[in-house]
């Protein structure tokens, strides 16, 4: 059992899709929260194969897309300081700030390095004792453990020239924000599989019960996704407001306890600013007092700059599932992967980028 091939069984997927077509009696809106689900849905052409009255919308599950523009502008300001090396995940380099991007600054000679793991920043810090290494710490509960581990190790190894510009987001309360939004109507959620791996089933169980919606935790192969939609349709029909975990091979009820304890060692919950949503209570982290020296904002007393975004960019509505990229005036005309205006076009997992890449115009 390799846990991949078994979930790529075309005949099985076709059988599930076939059964599904008998089940759907009324119009249903399902939100896939995670960007990787969005990618897989398009990559496998799943939308075309679903009954017409199932409407799939993409949620705020791409970490680059929900990162606020002011964060990017602050990162750009930081890279211009003397003796600074910025380390970052790849996707964020291309995100346009108000006047520039990290990619542009790199071309102009600023020291900006793409790393695969934040732990690589510690190696760079040791090699460059006279420079400050600032890691752009973004992501969800998925990247939080390794970022926490980097900060923990930096403290334990007494590495003083390392800090993070932190804007990690947490998932459950943004789903709450979406279901309580009067403008949005969603019948069921395809819960984020990777986030569930870390935080487990419980947070989604509580939400489903409290706010009366059906949800399924699923993996990312096409059989996972069509099965999740099949179960969601069934649960919505029976008004079963709970969470079903069909990603047992990875997701345990209590999540990954080791990863969670590392998160809790370094971070405490805080509010966070989401692109398109603004400030949402308890959807982010801040560093605990004893790790505060690793927060670039307190270390150098940096104020986050306020930024404005292109007034016709619909990223905000798209992230809430209120609009589709094709409804945006800028989409594919002015805004495309070579010239992205909003963050949803930059990240590989962004809804606009996915629509563009897979030819939905």
């Amino acid at each position, binding site marked *: 059992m390799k846990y991949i091939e078994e979930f790529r069984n075309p005949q099985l997927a076709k059988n599930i899709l076939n059964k599904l077509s008998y089940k759907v009696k009324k119009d249903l809106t399902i939100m896939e929260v995670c960007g990787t689900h969005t990618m897989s849905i398009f990559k496998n052409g799943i939308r075309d194969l679903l009954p017409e009255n199932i409407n799939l919308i993409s949620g705020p599950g791409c970490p680059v897309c929900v990162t606020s523009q002011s964060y990017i502008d602050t990162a750009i300001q930081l890279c211009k300081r003397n003796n600074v090396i910025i380390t970052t995940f790849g996707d964020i380099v291309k995100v346009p700030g108000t006047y520039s991007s990290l990619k542009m600054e790199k071309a102009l000679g600023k020291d900006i390095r793409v790393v695969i793991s934040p732990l690589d920043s510690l190696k760079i810090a040791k090699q460059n004792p006279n420079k400050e290494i600032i890691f752009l710490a973004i*992501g*969800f509960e998925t*990247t939080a453990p390794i970022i926490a581990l980097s900060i923990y190790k930096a403290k334990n190894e007494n590495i003083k020239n390392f800090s993070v510009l932190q804007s990690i987001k947490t998932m459950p309360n943004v789903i709450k924000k979406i279901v309580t939004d009067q403008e949005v109507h969603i019948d069921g959620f395809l819960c984020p599989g990777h986030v569930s791996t870390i935080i487990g089933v419980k947070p989604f169980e509580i939400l489903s019960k409290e706010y009366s919606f059906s949800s399924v935790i699923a993996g990312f192969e*096409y059989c996972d996704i069509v099965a999740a939609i099949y179960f969601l349709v069934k649960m919505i029909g029976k008004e079963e407001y709970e969470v079903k975990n069909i990603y047992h091979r990875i997701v345990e009820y209590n999540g990954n306890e080791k990863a969670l304890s590392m998160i809790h060692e370094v971070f405490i919950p805080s509010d966070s600013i989401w692109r398109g949503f603004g400030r949402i209570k308890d959807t982010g982290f801040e560093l605990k007092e004893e790790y505060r020296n690793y927060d670039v904002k307190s270390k150098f007393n940096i104020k986050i700059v306020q930024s404005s975004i292109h007034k016709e960019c619909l990223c905000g509505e798209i992230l809430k599932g209120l609009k589709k990229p094709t409804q945006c005036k800028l989409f594919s005309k002015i805004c495309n992967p070579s010239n992205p205006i909003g963050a949803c076009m930059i990240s*590989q997992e962004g809804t606009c980028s996915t629509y*563009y890449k897979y030819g939905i115009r």
Partner: protein
Amino acid sequence: MNVITLSHGSGGETTHKLIKDIFYKHFENDILLQQNDSSILQKLDGKIAVTTDSFVIKPIFFPGGDIGKLSICGTINDLAVSGAKPMYITVGFIIEEGLDINILEKIVSSMAKTAKQANVKIIAGDTKVVEKGSVDRIFINTTGIGFVKDEELYLCANNIKKGDKIIISGTLGDHGMCIMSQRKGLDFDVDIKSDCNVLNRLVDDLLNISKEVKMMRDPTRGGLATTLNEIIEGSHKSIVLNEEDLPVKEEVMSMCEMLGLDPLYVANEGKVVVIVSREDAYKVLEAMKRNPLGKDSAIIGEVIDDNKNKVYLKTEIGGTRILNMYTEDLLPRIC
């Protein structure tokens, strides 16, 4: 350690010694040894094909090849897929001072070996040495000259017709993923070899067996999807590929998935994609499979008449998606 210094590029005695001890030694042939400011060639028997390419790959040595081999393969393949018989190559080196001369010799020897394998002569060259930091170790430019023997051979997208088959000569994405796996910071313990190879004999084999080849390309940067988009542009036809027929090595697929990449967009350096009439497709496929470089050849799709200039992929479960040209940089994903 014996290293390249600025004086190796000065044109003086040290340069001459380098040319004699390394370049002439390995590239040796009657035309190069004319030792004039330019090499004089005999008339070629057909229309002349010329192509040029520069090579800046990092790392310079990788499983399955090196920058030298690549610089010969890339240029020979561009000639071959245009239907030309590759004859001559010129080479230009830009070297960063401090490069170990043994490394240079290894690269030069690899170029000579590859050219010999393709029956191509290296007939002219140039070396420049620049200060530390001005280039990354070594950059190479090669220009290739060949000729089209068959007067009737005309490879052009306008010839493409509905029902024509698309054949690829083997697995996709090997070169790109091999290079990615060698990059610093990506400590992947995988055994992916670059497919870097000269294709002229494979192309000869298939052109000898069919007069119905409409178009050939080597899908390098941007991968197969981008190459097919380039071919189909302006043809008023479209292409449908079948996902289940695409040959991709398991380790390449796994690595692509970990990095969020699609093998259809990853570079190849020893593959040819052929568009051939439906009638001759199996004959061509068999001929390609008989050549060791084409043993994994497969028919992967066909041309349709929808006037939209698109490349579609029929997914394993029966969905359809459009394969656009490549627009992004190859960057790892973050979650």
